[in-house]
């Protein structure tokens, strides 16, 4: 549904998106993940046809966004980040206006507006002036706006930003529901958001692609962060032995696990930037050192870094290169 090839977007001399390529297939719910200022909004604005690409091609449902902008925009429902609306209009007036603008046929307009309001849960405020709505409602009016012409593709820029936890849960529910009928691309800087609602994830940082795949594939990239062992014998001797191993940053009793009868759970973490091969060697040495220290090793299992840590590693290295996200040409 979306094909982004070698997309570059520059604001003056500042590069916001740098040679980004990814695809979104029909029926997928794809999370577009990256820290603030990674170029997410810029990319989505290009896809939605609001900004022109400096170079590279973007196709929406087979239509090039620069040469067949009209057709592409008709296939796409876009919800901008700040969810701007005309404050003086009532919700139902606004959505009817949007439906007409998006060329919903006159006879179907009422129905389309009503359906979209139902899906986005805003029917109860249909006759309220938008300027009087709370942030959560305005966000959902934006969602209804994106839905109103029943586009096959939805592009949502941070749909849960600024909402309270209950509203976030509601919106995620709505998005999961929408994923059954629409292809969805949603951006977020919150990892759990992706875990909650997406089938696939594209991670960018500093305008560049750093990872893409299903959540499981991404999770495989987690590096080993340390070692968890269960030993029988003298705890202090075990800790001393572990601390003597090269590559170990810290060793301490594992507070989360119960210890009794001279059986101790110990957790040690590797020094930062320890690669996989060194981590494996450090594991061998740690077990050897424990044995030499006269403690019996019952269990030894690698500890993987959390997804949050992985996200930090993937994006952190590039964050300096990209800098702040441009406000846009709007």
């Amino acid at each position, binding site marked *: 549904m979306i094909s982004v090839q070698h997309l570059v977007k520059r*604001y003056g001399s500042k590069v916001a998106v740098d040679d980004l390529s990814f695809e979104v297939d029909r029926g997928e719910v794809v999370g577009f993940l990256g820290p603030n200022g990674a170029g997410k909004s810029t990319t989505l*604005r290009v896809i*939605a*046809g*609001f*900004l*022109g690409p400096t170079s590279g091609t973007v196709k929406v449902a087979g239509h090039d966004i620069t040469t067949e902008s*009209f057709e592409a*925009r*008709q296939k*796409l429902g*876009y919800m*901008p980040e*700040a969810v*701007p*609306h*005309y*404050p*003086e*209009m009532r919700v139902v*007036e606004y959505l009817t*206006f*949007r439906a*007409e*603008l*998006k*060329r919903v046929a006159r006879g179907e307009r009422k129905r389309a507006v009503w359906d979209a309001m139902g899906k986005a849960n805003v029917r109860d405020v249909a006759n309220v002036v938008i300027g009087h709505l709370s942030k959560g409602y305005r966000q959902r009016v934006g969602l209804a*706006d994106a839905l109103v012409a029943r586009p096959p593709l939805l592009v949502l820029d941070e749909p849960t930003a600024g909402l309270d936890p209950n509203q976030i849960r509601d919106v995620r529910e709505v998005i999961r529901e929408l994923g059954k009928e629409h292809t969805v691309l949603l951006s977020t800087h919150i990892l759990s958001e992706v875990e909650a609602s997406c089938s696939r994830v594209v991670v960018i940082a500093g305008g560049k692609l750093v990872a893409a795949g299903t959540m499981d594939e991404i999770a495989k990239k987690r590096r080993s962060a340390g070692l968890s062992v269960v030993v029988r014998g003298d705890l202090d001797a075990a800790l001393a032995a572990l601390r003597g191993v090269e590559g170990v940053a810290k060793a301490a009793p594992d507070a989360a696990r119960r210890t009794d009868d001279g059986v101790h759970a110990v957790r040690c973490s590797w020094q930062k930037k320890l690669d996989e091969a060194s981590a494996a060697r450090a594991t061998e040495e740690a077990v050897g050192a424990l044995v030499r220290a006269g403690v019996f090793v019952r269990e030894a299992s690698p500890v993987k870094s959390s997804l949050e840590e992985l996200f930090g590693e993937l994006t952190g290295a590039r964050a300096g290169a990209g800098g702040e996200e441009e406000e*846009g*040409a*709007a």
Partner: protein
Amino acid sequence: MRSFWPIYKRELFAFFVTPLAWVLITVFLLVQGMHFFLLVDHFASAGQQLSDQTPLQAFFGNTVLLYLVLFLLVPPMTMRLFAEERRSGTIESLMTAPVSSVGVVLAKYAAVVTTYLAMWLPTVLYLVILRQTGDIDWSVAASAYLGVLLVGAGYLSLGMLMSAITKSQFLALVLTATVILALFILGVGEFVTREGTVMHDVCSHVSVWAHMNDFASGVVDSRRLVFYGSLVVLPLFVTVRAVDAWRWG
């Protein structure tokens, strides 16, 4: 161009649902009403001594009040057209819908011209009142209103352009007022430059004063039509280009 109607309707809605339009129309009608009253009063006391001019001519031409009103009303009418949408971000929703830049620009322009005409509409009553006292040359009246429409359309087009090149409504207001004032002052140059010089020709060509005098006495000069046609079309064209240009910012 099918995006024309929804945007046109929404612009009119936005204009009349906020107090701005009503305040402007009230001010406009107050000023014009006073103007008309003074004229009628003047003609009633002066009688036939001013035979070279009809009240109609005096109302539309040879008066500073007309320009004062335009100078005060056009900038606030046009300032919000694009500047407000860009400041609040609604332009993003608008331009990501399947609309064309030309459609958006023309719809907004048509809406503001419609509002302008709505402001003038009640002044037709003055003609009806004048008819009580004597005959009215309706073709002269039509020519006068054509002049009012052309001058207004030109200024509104300029105002819209100013709104498209800045995100600040206030700046758009100041720029529009400056351009209108500059055009007017250039026109006044007709009276201070010596006849026969290039400057005099230029000044008299752009002089809104002279134009309105012509229109008010029933003279529809094709030079005027070309001048105001350009004053409408050129800013419109540049506005469309400006709207397209935002995408590459």
